[in-house]
């Protein structure tokens, strides 16, 4: 069971993620997770007021089912297939984070400093982060799955621009803003 409960090698998971994308193409669909955010907005009926959400979200029901499956997969993986002894983050990263006041992972996926913290300041940060993700992915027309994986593997120049943008934003946040925030 060790090969299941330990962290999967990047080549195995990278290959499987590529296959997930190809299987969806075979089904006549496209691999993209952020479009589900648009569907969830449209489901509330706001399409009556905002034309961007005025389309038949039921066409995208298949993608919401993919999300449901992914949520179940996440549940099973965390609760039944996880051995906390084997998370190998670079010791340099852990030391840097300690200086910021973020605890070491010790087998966890998320730091308590951010995700198990009821301080209003942290909750507002999570909402702002989510806001940037939601607004940015719709503005750019896709996220990691839609641009970095679907787009780049189909040699799309727009996706390359978006992915460079992801890294510009990510590097600014990780190197300059996170040290100011924490």
């Amino acid at each position, binding site marked *: 069971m060790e090969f299941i409960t330990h*962290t999967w090698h990047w080549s195995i998971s990278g*290959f499987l993620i590529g296959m997930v994308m190809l299987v969806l193409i075979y089904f006549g669909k496209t691999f993209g997770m952020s479009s589900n955010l648009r569907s969830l907005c449209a489901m509330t009926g706001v399409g009556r007021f905002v034309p961007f959400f005025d389309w038949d979200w039921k066409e995208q029901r298949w993608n919401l089912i993919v999300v449901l499956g992914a949520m*179940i997969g996440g549940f099973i*993986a965390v609760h039944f297939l996880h051995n906390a002894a084997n998370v190998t983050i670079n010791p340099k990263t852990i030391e840097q984070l300690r200086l910021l006041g973020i605890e070491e992972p010790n087998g966890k996926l998320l730091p308590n400093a951010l995700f198990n913290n009821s301080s209003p300041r942290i909750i507002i940060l999570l909402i702002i982060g989510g806001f940037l993700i*939601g607004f940015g992915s719709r503005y*750019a027309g896709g996220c990691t799955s839609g*641009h970095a994986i*679907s787009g780049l593997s189909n040699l799309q120049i727009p996706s390359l621009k978006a992915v460079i*943008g992801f890294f510009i934003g990510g590097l600014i946040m990780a190197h300059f803003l996170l040290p100011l925030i924490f």
Partner: protein
Amino acid sequence: MKLLKYLFVGFLFGIVLTKTEAVSWYRIYEMFHFQSFHMFGIIGTAIATGFIGIQIIKRKKLTGIDGQPIEILDKENGSLRYWLGGTMFGLGWALVGACPGPIFILLGAGFYNVAFVLLGALVGTFLYGLIKYKLPH
């Protein structure tokens, strides 16, 4: 029943992303500090696998599950939207350490505070829809 196959694909996606720690805040921080090859390896292998598959589909003119030739749409041309939207997305990604797929996966796994991230993402998506026509694309 037709939708069941999507549940299975999503299930595999959720297991893979969790087991390779692509849903980990720590992994994203480590990636943006270039302190591990792990995330780059995952994304690079996924792109390489997808590239080979798409080339085979295009050259052999393969048909999809419905018997029709597979058509892969190109992304819309444009520049500003990709640079600006991409940069905004990156800022959020490095802050909360999760992109849209992992947001849902982590919620399913029981990390309930991620719901605040999802709430923000829905508000962001809604606001974009509201002001889309005023933005440069």
